[in-house]
């Protein structure tokens, strides 16, 4: 999967929330087609890292480049970049006043100026891919959490993004719905989508990731192939974290 062709590059990134140093000299390169899973304890800065890549969180120092271009600061160029990076949130964030199908077609029609008929056709195909085609005319509140998150993935895919960011996509789900969302993500990974996934799902990290990145206290502590990371974590911080979550 790793192509040696970097798509997302973070170099010496720092961010502070007031006195709190949430990203401390983070450098990370994600290749085209690579699946990078970011794990770490709460408050380690992994969500902020994920949100910095499409500039939902502006950074204070360092550089982030996407597809060879530094992230634009504001305005139209930033909007264009965001349209090329799909994002899936912990709380789904489907547009509450739009139907499922409208949620999936709004971006292509309003941002990409695609013809509504073409967007609709692709939207229905994507809903079919994530297994929700029969709910196209319902509103988000009428769907279960797992269904809503699958729609959110379809909404991001409808923009035909170059990469997908997942910010704890299963953390707000009931346990029996986690699997259906991870299945969709696994199939995306298998199809060669470039993905940055912040998650607590160690099973997903093991079988779908090319690389696991471990963060603690705003620092990128360790990165390794998943088999190696889970078998032989090098840092004490990672050993401590894994011992707490894997013993149960």
């Amino acid at each position, binding site marked *: 999967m790793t192509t040696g062709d970097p798509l997302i590059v973070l170099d010496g990134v720092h961010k502070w929330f007031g006195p709190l140093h949430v990203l401390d000299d983070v450098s990370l390169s994600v290749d085209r087609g690579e699946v990078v899973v970011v794990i770490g304890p709460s408050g380690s800065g992994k969500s902020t890292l994920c949100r910095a890549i*499409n500039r*939902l969180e502006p950074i204070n120092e360092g550089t982030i480049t996407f597809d060879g271009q530094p992230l634009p600061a504001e305005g139209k160029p930033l*909007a264009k970049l*965001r349209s090329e990076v799909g994002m899936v949130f912990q709380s789904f964030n489907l547009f*509450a*006043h739009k139907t499922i199908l409208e949620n999936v077609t*709004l971006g292509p029609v*309003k*941002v990409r100026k695609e013809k509504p008929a073409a967007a609709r056709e692709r939207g229905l195909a994507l809903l079919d891919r994530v297994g929700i085609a029969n709910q196209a005319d319902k509103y988000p509140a009428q769907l279960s959490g797992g269904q809503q998150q699958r729609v959110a993935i379809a909404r991001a895919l409808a923009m035909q993004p170059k990469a997908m960011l997942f910010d704890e996509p299963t953390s707000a789900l009931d346990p029996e719905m986690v699997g259906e969302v991870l299945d969709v993500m696994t199939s995306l990974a298998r199809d060669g989508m470039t993905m940055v996934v912040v998650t607590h799902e160690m099973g997903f990290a093991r079988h779908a990731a090319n690389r696991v990145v471990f963060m603690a206290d705003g620092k990128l502590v360790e990165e390794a192939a998943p088999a190696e990371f889970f078998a032989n974590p090098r840092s004490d911080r990672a050993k401590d974290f894994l011992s707490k979550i894997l013993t149960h």
Partner: protein
Amino acid sequence: MGEFLRVLTDNASLFRDGFINTVKLFLIAGVGSLVLGTLLGAMRVSPIPALRAFGATYVNLIRNTPLTLVFAFLVFAVPKLDVNIDYFPSACIALTVYTSAFICEVVRSGVNTVATGQAEAARALGMTFAQVLTLIVLPQALRAMVPPLMSVLIAMLKNTTIAAGFSVLEAGAIPAYMAERGEPQFAVLTWIVIGFLILILPLVVLQRFLERKWAVAR
């Protein structure tokens, strides 16, 4: 009771002209302040600091100025700058400028009721600020905005009576004319109260209708 009715029928044209002008003032200033107030509200939530500062300054300045002073500026001070506007348009402008500050705050509070994730998801799709606001945030903010919006509009409908002090013949000017004609003030004022009730009741019905129409599940 016959006397009470006579006050209305003998002076029907005065009542009619007065209330027609009240409705005209209300409609013109209502549309004007909805447009200007929404623009100001958009400024107050925009990502551009200069626009936010302008919106905040406008609200703090205008909302804290008595409406009679706003009228006085337009009717007495602005003509000194060699800008001549008739009394009626001046009254429309004064009401619009004043009411916009209140509508701006209704829009801003409505926007604040929409979960931040909605705007974030829209931005993540690549929408511009204007698209985020018009396609995602404002449609969801409307429901929360209806009750305070109607309160502001009802207050404005009653505020039109201040125009009487600035040479505009509207409902608020009727008592002075009637006093000259020697009509009993108690009956005159009661008829004006009834007139305002008739104008305001449809707004209350409209509010109920809109609240029900936009009562969507979240």
